[in-house]
């Protein structure tokens, strides 16, 4: 694949080593190159929000900036982060998935159903849930690609279908609105130790945090180092141009939808195992948090631009705000307002930095 030359990224840091001195590369300092990274704005935004809450922290012993506080905000941010990375890749690829939130519930409930009703081994149930999620993701993708309707509409449909299925099936089977999973189920302990346990003994960080970091690193590698990463940028930047140079547009988009649904399944499995049960309303409304995290992290709503690290930083900002507001002892009734203002701030800083960077390029 000789895609390097047609790479449609708006602001790629030129990667080819300057063998011969080329005047077009002359003025680009390392600082300017750093400034052009999409995640830099989010990084500065995250630092600003961190400093804000470290300052307004009203707890004795300044919990926000302690390791115990870190456990709290990483816990709050981790499940947003895992999803935000997937949603960011999908957004870079030019698509939305509004069913991503409710899909965490659907997959968790399926897990609960398989374990409690079919009495299957937890590990087998996990595999089945992942396969199921892949199928839902492929269905989303194929529908979007085939119908050429906006993914906003298609996945809104999926959102409503799954939301109804979640409540309907749970009610039908349990006569309540939740599945309780017994920790005596075969394979439960080992599965929980991977998906829903804690590490670093006195502080007890959630396993989800490790997953989040690993997924962010993995997604960043795919995005920046592989051909598939180039395809993602290409299909989101200009699908027709990408198709013209031989990028398998449909396949790329379908894989991205599949990845998003499977990430949701991982989160659903985590919630179900950690809390030994799952509620049929799980995940409803969270899709917006994922999209917000991705956008704060530098993804463009139009596609073709963004980063996985940025999306993770966006999720981190939400985690900071959620826990910081508690430590600052602000009135919890105003949570959404605080969150909104902080998001404005973060996006503002982000945009400012990006603009400066764009003008500094010349």
């Amino acid at each position, binding site marked *: 694949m000789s895609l390097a030359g047609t790479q449609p990224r708006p602001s790629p840091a030129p990667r080819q080593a300057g063998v011969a001195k080329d005047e077009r590369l002359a003025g680009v300092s390392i600082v300017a190159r750093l400034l052009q990274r999409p995640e830099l704005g989010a990084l500065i935004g995250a630092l600003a929000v961190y400093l804000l809450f470290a300052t307004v922290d009203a*707890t004795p012993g300044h919990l926000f900036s302690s390791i115990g506080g870190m456990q709290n*905000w990483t816990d709050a941010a981790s499940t947003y982060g895992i999803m935000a990375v997937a949603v960011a890749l999908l957004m870079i690829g030019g698509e939305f998935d509004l069913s991503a939130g409710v899909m965490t519930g659907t997959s968790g409930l399926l897990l609960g159903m398989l374990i409690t009703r079919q009495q299957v081994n937890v590990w087998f149930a996990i595999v089945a849930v992942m396969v199921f999620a892949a199928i839902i993701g492929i269905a989303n993708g194929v529908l979007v690609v085939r119908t050429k309707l906006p993914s906003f509409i298609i996945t809104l449909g999926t959102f409503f279908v799954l939301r109804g299925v979640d409540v309907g099936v749970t009610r039908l089977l349990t006569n309540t*609105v939740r599945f309780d999973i017994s920790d005596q189920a075969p394979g439960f302990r080992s599965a929980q130790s991977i998906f829903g346990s804690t590490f670093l003994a006195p502080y007890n960080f*959630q396993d989800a945090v490790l997953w989040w970091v690993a997924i962010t690193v993995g997604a960043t590698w795919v995005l920046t180092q592989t051909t598939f990463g180039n395809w993602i940028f290409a299909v989101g930047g200009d699908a027709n141009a990408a198709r013209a140079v031989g990028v398998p547009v449909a396949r790329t988009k379908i894989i991205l939808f599949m990845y998003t649904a499977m990430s949701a399944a991982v989160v659903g499995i985590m919630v179900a195992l950690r809390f030994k049960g799952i*509620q049929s309303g*799980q995940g409803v409304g969270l899709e917006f948090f994922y999209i917000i995290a991705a956008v704060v992290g530098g993804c463009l709503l139009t596609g073709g631009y963004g980063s996985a690290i940025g999306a993770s930083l966006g999720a981190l900002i939400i985690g900071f705000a959620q826990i910081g507001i*508690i430590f600052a002892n602000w009135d919890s009734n105003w*949570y959404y307002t605080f969150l909104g203002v902080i998001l404005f701030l973060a996006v503002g800083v982000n945009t400012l930095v990006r603009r400066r960077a764009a003008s500094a390029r010349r």
Partner: protein
Amino acid sequence: MSRIRVVIGLAALCLVAVACQSGTSSSGTSPAAAAGSSYRFYFVTHGDNGTFWSVVQKGESQAASDLGVSVNYQGSNNDDNQECQFISAAVTAKPDGLVVSPHSQTVLDCAKQAAGQGIPLILINNCGTTSGGQSYIAYSGALTCVGQPETAAGQQAGVRLKADGGHKLLCEIHEATSTSLRDRCAGAKAGFGGSEEDLVIDNAKSNVASATATLQAKLSADKSIDAILALDPDVAKNIVEAAVTGASSSAKIATFDISTGVIADIQSGKIDFAIDQQQYLQGYLPIVFLKLYKQNANTVGGFDTVKSGPGIVDKTNASTVASLAGKGTR
């Protein structure tokens, strides 16, 4: 292909048959009972097929067989329109009495019309006040309302938590815009008497992991919190328990409403007690009251709410309640 169509067709036919059957059986009870010259009561709720309403239904049908009256129960699954249709169908049938759960002002207005036609009316479950500040009973002309006033229930929870040694109470509101949850916390504050704080974590039940992190942060930020009131059994069982463990807090947990999980945790001591609104009484008592009214022109409750709760489930009665819950009456 054609075989698939036949199967689908058959399935559709079955569905229709089932629907019709359930339709006739429910309306079929009344004429049968009328033949026995006993009282005919209609019981219209916004209930679904969940555990809560199945207990109410158990109460109503037990009362019917204990008292030798006939009761026609209709649940409308939170659909106001449907509930009003059931009420007007009941009015057309000219019953000896009508029980309605006023799910909203709309339903209350429908019930009021029924009372206006001279049908004795008893409200259940939601014994609130209208936006004009009038009690539902006075507004609709009902004889009484059987339910658990939220503020009074919250107050009992507060009193009990105080008595169990609490100094600082945290009331966890899991839906920011629910008035009944706010009322419960206000009651708890009054009953607790000491320092109380509300923590709002909106949509906590659809975002358990992050709600737990938030609550855990709250508990580690304020170590003086030694009593937590959850307003929902699932919130108590999952979010509050996990946060208390995570923050290694020793706060006592109390909750509104019972579930099998909550009862088990009360027995094992993880949860201190649960406020039980004893909805069986909301099914049973209205039938008793209506019969007394028809037979002896008695009104119970002095045109005020008859409280079905709060009852308290704690370690002393948890095992009894657990076995009764197995029978579907708690």
